[in-house]
């Protein structure tokens, strides 16, 4: 299913592959996801798609270790890489923008004298320099999401998870987030991102994971998925007919 992803970057990076083996998630006896097998390797931008309730967020939370599977195994084949996650609604601390960043640096063990400079650098990179001292919670939605990306950027993740990071943003803010995603990827970060915006997936995806009703329908390189998806569900999804 995923052996078609043989691109040069597959072997070039030292990021450990991530393997889902017969993973299921159940809640009070109700199956929510799986059983699911999936292997993500290399330095790709993988977009997870599917209608609401398909299990996209669950997949990301399992991958990032925020959720343990009810059965099966999620494991890194090698050293666990540095990871960061950007959520649909950014969770920012009730502090200034820059203090949100220095906090992340403190947690990751960065020596105190370096924190401010590195935080300022990240703020500038994401166009937030003038907002340095503003309380993070009163920034606009787009600014908050950029701050969350700046925070992720500082921890130099090898794998970045993004859970519908643009679903509540206006077009300009969406563009900023997408550019940031490309920046991360250029720096050698593997991307795993959920979206239900087909055009966004077209712009960003190297490969697409399609989920439907908690099951993995297909994992296909993007150019193939958007021209001739292998499954009837994939075709229906592209036509906008796959709901619930």
């Amino acid at each position, binding site marked *: 299913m995923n052996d078609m992803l043989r691109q040069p970057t597959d072997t070039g990076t030292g990021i450990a592959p991530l393997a889902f083996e017969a993973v299921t998630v159940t809640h009070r006896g109700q199956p929510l996801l799986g059983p699911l097998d999936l292997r993500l390797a290399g330095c790709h931008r993988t977009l997870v798609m599917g209608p609401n309730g398909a299990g996209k967020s669950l997949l990301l939370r399992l991958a990032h270790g925020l959720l343990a599977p009810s059965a099966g195994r999620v494991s890194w084949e090698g050293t666990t890489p540095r990871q*960061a996650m950007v*959520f649909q609604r950014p969770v920012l601390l009730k502090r200034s923008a820059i203090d949100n960043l220095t906090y992340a640096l403190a*947690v990751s063990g960065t020596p105190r004298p370096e924190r401010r400079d590195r935080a300022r650098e990240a703020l500038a990179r994401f166009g937030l320099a003038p907002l340095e001292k503003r309380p993070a919670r009163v920034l606009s939605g787009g600014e908050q999401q950029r701050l969350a990306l700046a925070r992720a950027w500082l921890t130099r993740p090898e794998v970045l998870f993004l859970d519908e990071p643009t679903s509540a943003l206006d077009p300009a803010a969406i563009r900023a987030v997408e550019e940031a995603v490309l920046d991360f990827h250029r720096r050698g970060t593997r991307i795993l991102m959920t979206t239900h915006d087909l055009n966004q997936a077209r712009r960003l995806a190297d490969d697409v994971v399609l989920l439907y009703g908690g099951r993995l329908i297909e994992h296909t390189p993007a150019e193939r998925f958007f021209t001739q998806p292998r499954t009837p569900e994939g075709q229906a999804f592209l036509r906008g007919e796959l709901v619930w």
Partner: protein
Amino acid sequence: MPADANAFQTALALILGMDPVLLGIVALSVQVSLSAVLIAALLALPLGAALALWRFPGRGAIVVTLNALMGLPPVVAGLAVYLLLSRAGPLGPLGLLFTPTAMVIAQVILILPIIAALTRQQIEELHGEYRDQLRSLGVSRPRMMPTLLWDARFSLITVILAGFGRASAEVGAVMIVGGNIDGVTRVMTTAIVLETSKGNLPLALGLGLVLLGLVLLVNAAAHLVGETARRRLG
């Protein structure tokens, strides 16, 4: 009723004239209640945060007990401390009964459950919001404690002020363990009880006004802090 109007005027004169007896009583009251709040907060904030963050056997029982103790009658707390500190009690040799220290101990017992229980609630709520993000950043549980306490700081100030309100307004506990000794352990509430029973209404009324003013001030401060925080930090 001319007598009461008269008492009111005399009370105002006592306050505005900075009557030394009245000032002494007010100062001791504030000192005892502030010490009690400080000690209770130092113990209860980490305790409440820990109860919010860790799951362990017996946690439910502790939470229920704390919630129940929020309504602990002050006279019962006073009686318990009295038994502990009385000559024949386990802590009798310390000779603390009928001292301001004994009053502080009794008030700590009264307000510690309030601050701990309300802190647990606030921190649990905030933790629900922050959990995934903090775990994603790799924040350990012990490290989450100061983070969450700091981020809940404004609601926790209100919690601490609630504790101060309870401490400064109660009379039963300080009466039993303090003994209402003139110039030593006489605080506003115990003095009001005494002066009223003696028929010295001006002093009782004066003290009552000061107490009311103090409680009003504390609540205004709490409101102001909360509003400012909401406006500035979202």
